[in-house]
């Protein structure tokens, strides 16, 4: 009895400590990205200005108007991608099942690129199209994968198939577009937090404030859904309803994140497993996954803007970090015979 209690407390304490540490790191990076640039601002000035603790017109212009929107976008987009990826991976029981691999991001990209190339749309319209694309592709995958319920494996395979199909249409559209539109589409497709419009960013923040608590509540049924449908049913969980709610939360989050920054690749894939490894597998870790996502995107943006000689889109850096991880994942998952 005491051993059981002690084990549970240890697991919870570890999760708590790691989550707080991650929050500190994310906040430090958030401040750091607003300090550096063509004009250096001290950490103190950044904090007092960003949180409206003091008005100092020259600093406020740089911090609040120029740097805060990008930094906030990086923080929020990373958080949304991290949470979304974690929910998908747990729900489908597969580390490869991140929404950017099972076709949700491709759906968003297809709609966004179509609106740029075919309609010559502006940024608000592109974002709305991306969101619509994420939802449409998710519904399509859900319907195609439905057979007396949803199995993770079928969902992933159909998602990957659909994703390839949509990517090939994107290829066709870009190849036949005028140079200017094609260039604009390609920039969007790489994904960068710098392109965020303020309306889209505000929408994403609202979505996070509403949906993250929902995700935390859904963590309870998620813990038994992870044990397989039969076990979850036997334990009295409402399996289909909980799963639908979890998928919906995950898709809305990634849809809004993509609307803000384009498909920033690999963040949703890697944030969950990293967080899981740090907090331990029992700790839930939804907040931790979000924070890891924020740290990755903030870090990638910092590198993309200031470390490499030419400023690059965020997606290039996350791609450079993420691709080797994916290869490692595929290699080890297959060795353990769990296939992906």
């Amino acid at each position: 009895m005491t051993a059981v209690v002690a084990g549970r407390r240890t697991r919870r304490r570890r999760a708590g400590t790691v989550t707080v540490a991650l929050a500190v790191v994310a906040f430090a990076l958030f401040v750091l990205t607003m300090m550096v640039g063509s004009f250096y601002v001290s950490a103190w000035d950044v904090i007092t200005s960003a949180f409206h603790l003091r008005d100092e017109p020259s600093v406020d212009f740089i911090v609040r108007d120029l740097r805060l929107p990008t930094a906030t976008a990086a923080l929020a987009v990373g958080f949304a991608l991290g949470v979304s990826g974690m929910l998908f991976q747990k729900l489908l029981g597969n580390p490869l099942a991140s929404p950017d691999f099972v076709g949700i991001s491709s759906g968003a990209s297809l709609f966004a690129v179509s609106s740029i190339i075919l309609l010559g749309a502006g940024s608000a319209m592109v974002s709305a199209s991306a969101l619509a694309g994420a939802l449409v592709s998710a519904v399509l995958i859900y319907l195609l994968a439905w057979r007396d319920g949803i199995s993770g494996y079928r969902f992933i395979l159909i998602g990957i198939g659909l994703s390839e199909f949509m990517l090939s249409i994107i290829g066709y559209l870009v190849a036949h577009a005028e140079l200017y539109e094609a260039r604009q589409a390609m920039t969007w497709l790489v994904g960068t937090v710098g392109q965020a419009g303020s309306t889209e960013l505000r929408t994403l923040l609202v979505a996070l404030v509403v949906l993250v608590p929902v995700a935390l509540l859904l963590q309870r049924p998620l813990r038994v859904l992870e044990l397989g449908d039969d076990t979850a049913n036997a334990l009295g969980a409402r399996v289909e309803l909980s799963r639908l709610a979890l998928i919906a939360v995950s898709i809305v989050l990634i849809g809004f994140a993509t609307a803000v920054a384009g498909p920033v690749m690999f963040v949703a894939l890697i944030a969950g497993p990293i967080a899981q490894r740090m907090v331990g597998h029992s700790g839930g870790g939804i907040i931790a996954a979000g924070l890891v996502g924020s740290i990755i995107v903030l870090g990638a943006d910092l590198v993309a803007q200031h470390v490499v000689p030419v400023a690059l889109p965020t997606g290039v850096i996350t791609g450079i970090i993420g691709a080797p991880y994916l290869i490692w994942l595929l290699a080890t998952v297959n060795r353990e015979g769990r296939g992906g």
Partner: protein
Amino acid sequence: MTHDLRAKNLTLGYSDVDIVRDLDVVIPDGRITVIVGANACGKSTLLRGLARLLRPRSGQVILDGTSVHDLKSVEVAKVLGLLPQSPVAPDGITVGDLVGRGRYPHQGWFRQWSSEDDRAVAAALEATGTADLADRNIAELSGGQRQRVWVAMALAQDTDLLLLDEPTTFLDINHQVELLDLLTDLNRESGKTIVIVLHDLNLACRYADHIIAMKQGAILAEGPPIDVIDSAVVTEVFGLACEVVPDPVSGTPMIVPRGRHHAARETVSAAS
């Protein structure tokens, strides 16, 4: 506490095939019931139907006088537990955490964990001899240990009825016996009603108080093994020619298949 689990005119199936047809059964309270039958005879389907994992095509499963589909899932889950054939252990999960998830039906959105939960988890680990493994990762355990951990999870659910779908499938003979002994302990010590789907007829005959032999979605024979299982029934159920002799340890029926070879045995047994 006594419970009454029964099926009435129950028809179960997947997509457009009926697997179990118009079946009536009463599960004896406080006893061990074992369901046997050839592959695809509908025994697992019946078990899943009893645990309301399948919605009946027609007929109903009745728990304490009410159709299970009219009861709230979580209320059924406080009385009736099921260990499915292939439960999934998430990556990296520890034994203590997994067993704790069996407490789901006793928790709520606001009452997340109580000392009652701690007590139930500790008791389940104790009963299955897995207390020492509580902090170990599931993936590190042997097949026998892992199966005991799953049983512990089902025990933590703290139900008076426990249904198990082929719990011995991946175990060697030693661990099969160990697990069935454990289930017998649970039945004798706490009066749990246990229903098991088993492949091994000899073990089924030894451990069952009540045996149900199924063929093509219907019950062919049921009752105490010693009254029910003879060579005619085994031949009918499995299409296997065999001798049935008393088990030298328990005296329950023991099945010796004939097969087409090694006929010398036949003359020996015919002579004796």
